[in-house]
């Protein structure tokens, strides 16, 4: 007997992937993977970047075709040629990078690709009504009339979920859905997931965060190097076990942070006001001081002005009011080059967009900011011998794995590119370092390495501003933690005294003493 | 797999070429044929400058007895001078008896090419310079005295105009177009001193649309008689027809485009010049002569449109103007 969801769709009782093999030129992305999910459960898919999680799910969603293996839905073999086929079968997917069109409104994004009740003409009012119903039913608050570019990531995520529900998804694939949320938002989201599961939805939860996986899922499958490294029920598995299954070796989960005597104030920010893309002040009167040998962690939900603050500090975004003082020199509204010259290094948030040039070689990327200086160039001519010598040293110092210095960076893994950027920025011996999301999308091994280097830099007396949405990272590395909310610093706490609950409340805008 | 595909393609090409190669070859032309080549800036169907010469050549060819007596080779749309000069050189080296460089912009190139081919006769127009001053002896030159016909047509236009407003439109304010347009203006003012003549240029030899709008503008400004030069006037003629205005053509008989609107055209008849050049070459004179197309030598002809009745006194005035030009009392 078919059961139905409250959305009116039949429940998808069981989805089973058997012996899935997917090859890309030179890479075996999935190697005979078995995976299944049943109605009413949350099944976590855990693994490092590049372990093959997304590839597996893209085959379920009809974006790739498996080279071998079967996909069975309620016992019936399915052949998905396009996402449309998957959608028709009741499968929905929330992608890690949101699949939203920024220039369209929320309803327009949801209505995209759907049949309209008015034939060729859009019926946005009707879509809007249904969106509000779903939003009510699952507790997903959205403003249907707003343009997507105006929205914070949390809200964009809710739109993605409604989009899938609107299409009658009974099985939902959630690719790293918590990466950009506050702890409170994560809690709310988990409540929604549990509600959905209890109603009969099947959920696949992709993540690399062990805490979350243990908090939400019924079963956990770990992928490593394209293979299924094991499926365990939640009850009889521990964090340490899971980490070992993921990485294939024991993992450090705690860092040693020796005390350092604070040096002079290196970076001084005074009453800074910076306009955001929407014309309003995204940074609204921020004042901070960071001393040499100190890591100041800047926590906060994405979209609260951290990006704009980082860009202003890098000299990329005009300062409307206030001052930035680097090593006692005023650099307010100076060019990126001036910031660099005063001794600042910067690790941008989006490494492929802002930190590196895909088609440039490793060597070319390594000299991006310093190519005009000795020894890289002399009298406007690049000195390739010197470049190869210096760059080769940095590459080996920072453990960047690359076939050669002339390999385009687009062929490197995310972790290696991040190490390259780190190497480039740290080899300059900066007195001030702005590091924005330095380990986002990087595997555990590389993350560990990057964290170690940041702590070493602290010992050398660098003043570091660490901007991250990963509270664990911030707590593990920072001396002090500042929390940013709606463009302001809502509070600064000593990292020893900070509890996740307290930080979470601050990130939600609650000022605690 | 890809290279296999390309191999197949190459094979097909070769087969196609072989098949084509087996087609019967054109019969070898006997050496008595007089070979003429012409290089033109615009198309042989431009209803203007290039077409007038090309049709002239064909007419002469027919008179001489067809392809067995005279062979014509042509290169059209040679608006790039280096291409034209390559073509001229190429024809000369292939043994053409007469190579016509039908564009004043080709002069500099011709001056360099002609001395290399003393056995070939060249012709250059429109110009009157045969480069004799430079010691070159194998270049003919020819020029249309476009202002003569302009003057006569201007006379007719002025006398037939009811509004006394006359519009002229050309491509660029230079060369043949300028001669014609200024001659026309003189003719109008000579016949009707209080007439109002306005002139527009479109800046292009091929902007048919803007030329049509220029005609439209003249008509909106009150003009009932229009004329213009270059291949782009074809659009303007249509506008004249639609708006009930009249048109005067030049370089080519444009009556066929608008039998209800074209009153008369100045037609360039190059046949006399062509025949004379051929005769000269056959007699061993390879150049040095400058030809002009005038009423007097019959190179310029006014072709009236039989479908439009022209008052007798107007026609008489036109004939008088031609006579005056011929005897030199009027210099347009």
């Amino acid at each position, binding site marked *: 007997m078919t059961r139905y969801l409250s959305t009116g769709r039949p429940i998808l009782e069981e989805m089973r992937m058997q012996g899935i093999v997917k090859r890309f*030129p*030179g*890479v075996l992305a999935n190697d005979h993977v078995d995976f299944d999910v049943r109605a009413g459960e949350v099944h976590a898919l855990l693994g490092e970047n590049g372990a093959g999680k997304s590839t597996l799910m893209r085959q379920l969603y009809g974006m790739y075709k498996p080279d071998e293996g079967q996909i069975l839905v309620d016992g019936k073999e399915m052949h998905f040629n396009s996402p449309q086929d998957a959608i028709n079968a009741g499968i929905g997917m929330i992608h890690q990078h949101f699949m939203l069109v920024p220039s369209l409104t929320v309803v327009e994004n949801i209505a995209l690709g759907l049949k309209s009740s008015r034939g060729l003409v859009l019926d946005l009012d009707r879509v809007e009504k249904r969106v509000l119903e779903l939003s009510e039913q699952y507790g997903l608050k959205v403003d249907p009339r707003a343009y997507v570019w105006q929205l914070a990531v949390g809200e964009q995520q809710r739109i993605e979920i409604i989009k899938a529900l609107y299409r009658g998804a009974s099985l939902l694939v959630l690719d790293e859905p918590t990466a950009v949320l506050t702890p409170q938002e994560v809690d709310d989201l988990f409540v929604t997931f549990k509600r959905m599961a209890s109603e009969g939805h099947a959920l696949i939860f992709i993540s690399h965060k062990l805490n979350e996986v243990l908090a939400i899922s019924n079963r956990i499958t770990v992928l490593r190097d394209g293979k299924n490294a094991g499926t365990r029920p939640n009850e009889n598995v521990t964090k340490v076990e899971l980490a070992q299954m993921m990485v294939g070796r024991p993992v450090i989960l705690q860092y040693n942070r020796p005390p350092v005597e604070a040096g002079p104030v290196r970076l001084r920010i005074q009453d800074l006001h910076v306009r955001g893309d929407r014309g309003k002040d995204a940074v609204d009167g921020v004042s901070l001081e960071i001393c040499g040998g100190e890591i100041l962690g800047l926590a906060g939900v994405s979209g609260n002005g951290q990006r704009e603050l980082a860009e202003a500090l*890098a*000299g990329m975004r005009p300062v409307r009011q206030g001052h930035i003082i680097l090593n006692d020199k005023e650099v307010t509204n100076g*060019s*990126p*080059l001036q*910031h660099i010259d005063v001794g600042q290094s*910067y690790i941008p948030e989006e490494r492929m*967009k*802002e*930190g*590196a*040039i*895909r*088609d*440039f070689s490793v060597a*070319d990327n390594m000299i*991006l900011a310093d*190519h*005009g200086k000795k020894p890289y*160039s002399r009298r406007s*001519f*690049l000195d390739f011998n010197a470049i190869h010598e210096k760059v080769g040293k940095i590459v080996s110092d920072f453990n960047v794995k690359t*076939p050669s210095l002339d390999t*385009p960076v687009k*062929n490197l893994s995310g972790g290696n590119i991040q190490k390259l950027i780190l190497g480039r920025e740290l080899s300059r011996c900066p007195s001030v370092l702005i590091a924005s999301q330095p380990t986002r999308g990087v595997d555990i091994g590389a993350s560990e390495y990057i964290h170690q280097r940041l702590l070493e830099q602290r010992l050398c007396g660098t003043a570091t501003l660490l901007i991250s949405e990963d509270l664990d990272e911030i707590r593990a590395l920072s001396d002090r933690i500042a929390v940013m909310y709606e463009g302001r610093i809502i509070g600064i706490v000593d990292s020893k005294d900070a509890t996740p609950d307290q930080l979470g409340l601050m990130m939600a805008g609650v000022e605690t003493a | 797999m890809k290279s296999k595909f*390309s191999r197949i*393609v190459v094979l*097909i*090409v070769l087969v*196609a*070429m072989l098949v*084509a*190669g087996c087609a019967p070859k054109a019969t070898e032309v006997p050496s008595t044929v007089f070979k003429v080549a012409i290089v033109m800036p615009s198309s042989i169907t431009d209803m203007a400058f290039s077409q007038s010469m090309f049709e002239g050549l064909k007419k002469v060819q027919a008179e001489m007895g067809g392809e067995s007596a005279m062979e014509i*080779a*042509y*290169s*059209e*749309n*040679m*608006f*790039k*001078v*280096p291409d034209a000069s*390559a073509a001229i*050189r*190429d*024809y000369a*080296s292939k043994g053409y008896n007469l190579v016509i460089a039908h564009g004043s*912009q080709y*002069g*500099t190139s011709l001056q360099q090419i002609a001395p290399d081919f003393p056995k070939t006769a060249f012709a250059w127009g429109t*110009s*009157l310079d045969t480069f004799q001053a430079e010691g070159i002896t194998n270049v003919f030159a020819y020029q249309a005295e476009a202002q003569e016909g302009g003057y006569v047509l201007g006379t007719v236009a002025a006398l037939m105009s009811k509004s006394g407003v006359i519009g002229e439109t050309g491509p660029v*304010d*230079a*060369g043949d177009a*300028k001669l014609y347009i200024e001659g026309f203006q003189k003719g109008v003012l000579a016949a009707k001193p209080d007439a109002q003549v306005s002139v527009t240029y479109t800046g292009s030899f091929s902007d048919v649309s803007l030329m049509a709008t220029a005609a439209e503008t003249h008509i909106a400004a009150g003009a009932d008689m229009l004329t213009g030069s270059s291949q782009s006037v074809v659009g303007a003629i249509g506008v004249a027809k639609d708006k009930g205005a009249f048109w005067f053509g030049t370089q080519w008989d444009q009556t066929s485009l608008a039998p209800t609107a074209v009153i008369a055209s100045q037609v360039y008849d190059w046949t006399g010049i062509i025949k004379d050049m051929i005769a000269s070459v056959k007699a061993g004179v390879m150049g040095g002569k400058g030809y002009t197309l005038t009423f007097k030598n019959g190179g310029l002809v006014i072709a009236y449109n039989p479908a439009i009745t022209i008052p007798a006194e107007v026609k008489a005035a036109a004939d008088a103007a031609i006579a005056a030009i011929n005897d030199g009392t009027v210099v347009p």
Partner: protein
Amino acid sequence: MKRVLNKVFEALLPLLAVPVAFLIGAIMLLALGANPLEAYGAMIAGAFGDVSGLTQTLVKATPLLLVGLGVCIAFRGGVINIGGEGQIIVGALAATAVAVGFKEWPGLVLLPLCLLAGVLAGAMWGGVPGILKAKLGVNEILSTVMMNAIAVQLSNYLLRGPMIDPKEIEAGTRIAQSALLPRSVWLARLVPQTLLHSGAIIAVVLAVVVFIFLWRTTIGYRIRAVGLNRDAAKYAGIKVPFYQALSLILGGAFAGLAGAIEVMGVQHRMMENLASGYGFSGIVAALFGSLHPLGSIPASVLFGGLLVGADKMQRAVQVPSALIDTLLGLVVLLVVGSQVISRRRARRRETRG
């Protein structure tokens, strides 16, 4: 070794599209009653078969290469220069004006001055869209197209007014062309009785210079960085708008130089339609050369040969010249259409390697 072979194969792959285009052309020729074998024979022989053909090909390739080099720089800087046409015209006008204006000066001074005038004028014509792009974000495709139209009218004005050959007024013919340039600025002829001039050498030397410039100097490095990733370049302290403008200015300078060399080497005077088509053909030649300055050298020669040979073919079999445009269009379409194949091969190899 295998890598080199692969690269060579990929570079040559687009050329395989040419036979396909010619096959279609053969059908058209047959339909027009011409013999395709004879036609293509004339084409190849005409372009490369003898001294005259070869030199014509090289004469044609010279402006294509120069414009193509400008296109390379602009593309590498992430901007599209469709303004080659106008830049050639103003470059030629400026060189002519200087040569005619100071004709008494010794050639040793005047000749480089003329080339410089062409470069500067072209740079200025490319600089307007460049600065508009840098300062106001005006789309360069739009502004360069407009600048082309403006240059044509400027040339029309100058050539029948201030710059017209006094002899033309004297003779009453008033052909829109400038006076003949003084002999002192004529570029030396490399092969007697042909049009091949030393400009061809200048172009090849400059191709090497541009290669060195783009890949060996800091400014070239910055231009390429800006072209590949504006944001990353900006974060690294590179002034993105400046280098975008600079790429357009340099693109204009090369087209302007092409104009100057065309009047000084081939025409010896400025006239109408001097630039016709070189602006676009230069883009195509640069693309055939994979937007690499050194690749542009053989690509320009091949494309120049195609143009020259096509004209010869038209004369040999007496078909309308329009057939040539049709064929060239097909070649371009098929070549760019087939490039994806070599791109995919390259990608496959990279992910493996």
